[in-house]
């Protein structure tokens, strides 16, 4: 059960380049993990994600296939994540974005702010391609008629 709302910029291009800025980056080549720490900002087209720590896992290059599979397989942000897409905002303790699924799963008192409406719950599955967000776990909606953030 859950409540789904629309979320995010309509024309989010999930194939767009991903840009990451941070203070520090540590890469362990064997385990294909890169850990960004220190005011990490991950930007893809119209979606921006802010977090103190972001772990990026790269695609395992399959030796048998001819062409080189490279690229980012998964982005995992933790330590209090804020995500902005279009003019909507989402917050949560952690955000897990498996690129192939095009869904960002935010966990830990997730909150979605759309204009004046706020929806909170335990987890939020934000589908960037279809601009929907499915909120689950003790979902509460706060519709503020007057005040706009």
């Amino acid at each position, binding site marked *: 059960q859950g409540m789904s709302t629309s979320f995010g910029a309509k024309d989010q291009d999930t194939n767009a380049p991903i840009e990451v800025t941070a203070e520090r*980056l540590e890469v362990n080549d064997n385990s294909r993990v890169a850990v*960004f720490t220190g005011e990490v900002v991950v930007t893809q087209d119209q979606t921006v994600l802010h977090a103190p720590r972001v772990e990026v896992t790269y695609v395992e290059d399959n030796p048998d296939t001819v062409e080189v599979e490279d*690229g980012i397989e998964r982005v995992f942000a933790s330590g209090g994540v804020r995500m902005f897409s279009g003019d909507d905002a989402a917050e949560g303790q952690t955000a897990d974005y498996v690129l192939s699924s095009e869904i960002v799963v935010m966990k830990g008192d997730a909150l979605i702010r759309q204009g004046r409406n706020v929806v909170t719950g335990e987890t939020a599955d934000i589908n960037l391609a279809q601009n929907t967000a499915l909120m689950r776990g003790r979902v509460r909606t706060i519709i503020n008629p007057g005040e706009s953030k």
Partner: protein
Amino acid sequence: MADKQRNTYSVVISWVKIVLPLVAVLLLSSIFLLSRRIDPEGAIPYAEDDIIQMIREQRLSKPDYQGKTRDGGVLSVSAEAARPSGDGTDEGTADDVVARLTRPDGTIIDLVSDFGDLSNTKLITFTGQVQMNTSDGYEITSDKVISSMEKTDVVSPGPITGTGPFGRIDAGNMHMTIPEGQDEMITVFENGVHLIYSRTDDKSEEQN
């Protein structure tokens, strides 16, 4: 009469017999007395400077250094010409240095630079358009890289730019090392990191 007309010829001859030997003696003596003072010491310093120059410069063309690092890697360094610096300090500089560190697990770090400072037995300092390529996909340029000769420890104190397995990267500095007690190499970029990964080139073609 005859004696009056003393035969001028014989008079001339008698004078010549006296004058000519005197002149000869004078000429001979001038060779030894007036000749340039040949200073035996003088000749040697010129040769000595040249020898010292050669020793100090030790022009090693293509000096090859190959050594094992403590963690089992093999480091080989080759330079166009290596010269200890002229002013006596043993800080030696080399031109277009090429170094390759082969790690026990097979990954290779290649470093190429215009200049290399090989004097310190523990470190090599690469300067001047340093290009670093590693077998796991890093192609990084910096203007100064310091590599330890004893273990895998490559540092670029200054800004780097280039590409990695994850995409284009620019960072304030870079440190590639094996942390104590671990055997996996990690690369740390600090002082501001900016990475751009664009997937458009390969993936999107397959999709549409």
